[in-house]
């Protein structure tokens, strides 16, 4: 009945690439390593396309087991619970599949150029392929447990790649931070899964969702689903960098720029959105959990955008922008517009991936510099990068007809139907987004070049830095890096058009069902209102761009004055509202101090070590004394026997007398 799509090939191909490069890459040439990496990711992308083509001709959800043999693919089978190595393809996972393999493949191509001079070349591609394997497992899994494997696996790959230049202290600790913060989220996710197992005895998506729909409505059911929903959302907060667990993502920019593009913008961080969308059956029946999702998303979108205004590191701006855009996606999910969230996920993967790759190209051009204050005027040096990044900037700010316009507008429209508050905050965020994105664009590409010019080639290498190589004038990147930029620019240009007339929503309708089709109120059909809101959001985006133009191109002295005028507020924004310091004081310091003073010096040394040492000392003391009894002198033994007998006899006599 269901066609055999050999879905297992899609994740296993990058895994094979990771294994080959990881095991043999050290001795292989760079060309060999890149061939293997590109071949296997490319093959995965092709196979995903084949699967998509065959899938759309059948148009049913497709479920199949790894290696196509249910008996081989059993994973956990105990009474009352089972989880299998099985994959599941429906419209939702198909979208994710194509985004992950497609954008992933492009970023692999780009990395060939970007990482060429790095001594860890083979290691980089091995990790990157490993990431693809886990991400595809996450996307294709047919049960929560296998999804969790992918979930943890992408966390591992993210850790390895953030700390790719592990000799740099900041990179190593950024990787650690990402891993630990994600653990907090995973903790919530796991507890949610345990609750599901207890209730339904399975983690299979279809069975769980069937079970959820069959539950009798009531207070108990709603409490359960709300708890599960909020716990899953905690997991999503960790992975997708939402308040309060977003702090790891900006630090994750320590990794190589293609990693930031692939993992920390286009794919991994959207796993949380995917998971929430996948669990829409649970969330739809738990209005409180859904509201929590919406509030967290809205707040994160606004909050991260405000931080983005004052950052000067080009990648940090993009990182906060990613957090903010993820907030939009959660806002969409929270108001029940899952398909709008997924749509934004897709367009975001295009334009944010492009922005990061473009930033990488810029960093490459100026020899490893990431501070935008030392850039400027680059549009004549790197015309292609400037052009493609311009398209991405227009896309993220929501100027029609670029991709971001369609998805962001869809989200704002859906948000308005739920509550005008979400819409208003979303609109303000759109304004801020437009401002800081054009600020980035103008600071980088307009004005005069403010960086250091080194005329001779061969100035100092920045050890383990982005694109550290001998350098002169800013120069355009090689073609292998530009081609992915151009393809992504094209996708950012037209990617939004798939949604015209609600066709994207229609495409996902089999997954999200009728829940979205029926609008909550009458305003949904108000065409005029929709167009008015659309015009407002475009106007706001243009306003933001205009403000950025005034501040950073026509009157570049103004920002300093404004910053000085704002004083404390500006400092707070510049220092990311001191949240890192707050977390350090609230959570990190107590844990470190407690571990040092109580657990290490107190429990470990004083209690455990001392008790063991004392016991050993005592035993040695006692045996030192006891040893004297065994002198080897026979007559002393005889003496002891005689003395003992005498005592026994005396005792017996005493007994006799006492009687």
């Amino acid at each position, binding site marked *: 009945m269901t066609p055999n799509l050999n879905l297992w090939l899609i994740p296993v191909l990058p895994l094979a690439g990771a294994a080959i490069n990881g095991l043999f890459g050290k001795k292989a040439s760079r060309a060999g390593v890149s061939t293997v990496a590109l071949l296997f990711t490319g093959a995965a992308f092709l196979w995903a396309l084949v699967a998509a083509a065959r899938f759309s001709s059948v148009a049913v959800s497709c479920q199949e087991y790894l290696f196509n043999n249910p008996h081989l693919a059993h994973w956990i089978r105990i009474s009352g619970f089972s989880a299998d190595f099985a994959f599941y393809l429906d419209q939702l996972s198909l979208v994710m599949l194509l985004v992950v393999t497609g954008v992933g493949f492009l970023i692999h191509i780009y990395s060939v150029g970007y990482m060429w001079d790095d001594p860890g070349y083979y290691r980089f591609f091995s990790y990157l392929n490993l990431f693809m394997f886990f991400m595809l497992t996450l996307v294709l899994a047919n049960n929560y447990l296998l999804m969790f494997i992918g979930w943890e696996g992408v966390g591992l790959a993210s850790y390895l790649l953030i700390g790719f230049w592990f000799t740099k202290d900041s990179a190593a600790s950024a990787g650690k931070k990402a891993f630990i913060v994600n653990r907090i989220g995973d903790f919530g996710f796991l507890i949610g899964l345990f609750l599901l197992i207890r209730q339904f005895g399975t983690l299979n998506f279809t069975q769980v969702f069937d079970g959820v729909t069959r539950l009798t409505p009531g207070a108990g059911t709603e409490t359960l689903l709300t708890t599960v929903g909020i716990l899953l959302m905690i997991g999503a907060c960790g992975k997708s960098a939402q308040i309060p667990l977003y702090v790891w993502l900006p630090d994750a920019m320590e990794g190589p720029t293609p990693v930031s593009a692939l993992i920390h913008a286009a794919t991994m961080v959207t796993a949380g959105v995917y998971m929430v969308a996948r669990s829409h059956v649970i969330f739809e029946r738990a209005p409180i959990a859904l509201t929590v999702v919406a509030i967290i998303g809205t707040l994160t979108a606004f909050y991260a955008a405000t931080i983005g205004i004052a950052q000067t590191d080009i990648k940090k701006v993009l990182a906060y922008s990613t957090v903010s855009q993820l907030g939009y996606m959660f806002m969409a999910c929270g108001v029940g517009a899952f398909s709008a969230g997924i749509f934004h996920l897709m367009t975001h993967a295009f334009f944010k991936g492009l922005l990061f790759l473009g930033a990488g190209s810029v960093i490459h051009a100026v020899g490893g510099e990431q501070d935008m204050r030392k850039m400027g005027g680059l549009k004549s040096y790197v015309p292609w990068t400037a052009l493609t990044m311009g398209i991405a900037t227009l896309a993220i700010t929501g100027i029609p007809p670029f991709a971001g316009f369609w998805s962001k507008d869809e989200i704002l429209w859906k948000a308005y139907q739920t509550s005008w508050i979400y819409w208003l905050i979303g609109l303000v965020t759109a304004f801020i987004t437009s401002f800081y994105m054009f600020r980035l664009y103008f600071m980088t590409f307009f004005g005069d070049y403010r960086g250091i010019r080194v005329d001779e080639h061969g100035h100092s290498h920045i050890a383990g830095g982005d694109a550290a190589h001998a350098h002169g004038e800013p120069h355009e990147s090689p073609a292998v890096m530009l081609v992915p930029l151009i393809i992504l620019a094209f996708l950012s240009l037209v990617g939004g058009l798939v949604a015209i007339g609600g066709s994207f929503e229609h495409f996902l309708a089999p997954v999200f069902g009728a829940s979205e089709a029926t609008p909550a109120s009458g305003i949904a059909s108000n065409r005029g209102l929709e167009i008015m809101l659309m015009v407002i959001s475009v106007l706001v985006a243009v306003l933001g761009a205009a403000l950025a133009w005034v501040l950073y191109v026509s009157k570049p002295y103004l920002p300093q004055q404004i910053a000085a005028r704002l004083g404390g507020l500006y400092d707070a924004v510049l220092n990311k509202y001191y949240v890192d310091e707050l977390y350090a004081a609230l959570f990190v310091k107590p844990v470190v101090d407690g571990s040092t003073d109580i657990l290490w010096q107190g429990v470990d040394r004083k209690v455990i070590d001392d008790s063991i040492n004392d016991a050993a000392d005592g035993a040695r003391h006692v045996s030192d004394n006891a040893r004297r009894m065994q002198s*080897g002198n026979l007559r002393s033994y*005889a*003496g002891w026997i*005689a003395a003992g007998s005498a005592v026994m006899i005396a005792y017996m006599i005493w007994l006799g007398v006492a009687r």
Partner: protein
Amino acid sequence: MVPLSYYLVLSGILFACGVIGFLIKRNIITIFLSIELMLNGVNLSFVAFAAHWHALAGQVFVFFVMVVAAAEAAVGLAIIIAVYRTRETLNVDRVNLLKL
């Protein structure tokens, strides 16, 4: 008739003499004699009880003890001679090769 307790006291004295001799003497022959003294002290109590209770078992035991003592004397003296031949001494404290 001599009361039983007299025999027992004498037996105890003999045994104690044997023990003390065993413990304090260094000459191996003296130690050997002390062992004989202990055995015979015990023998004395056996026969005394046998006579007192008109039971033969005690006397039979004495014969056994004497047989064992004779065998022991034979083996023991042979060992003493062998030791003396190799080590030229009868002092037990010098025969301590096996001691740590």
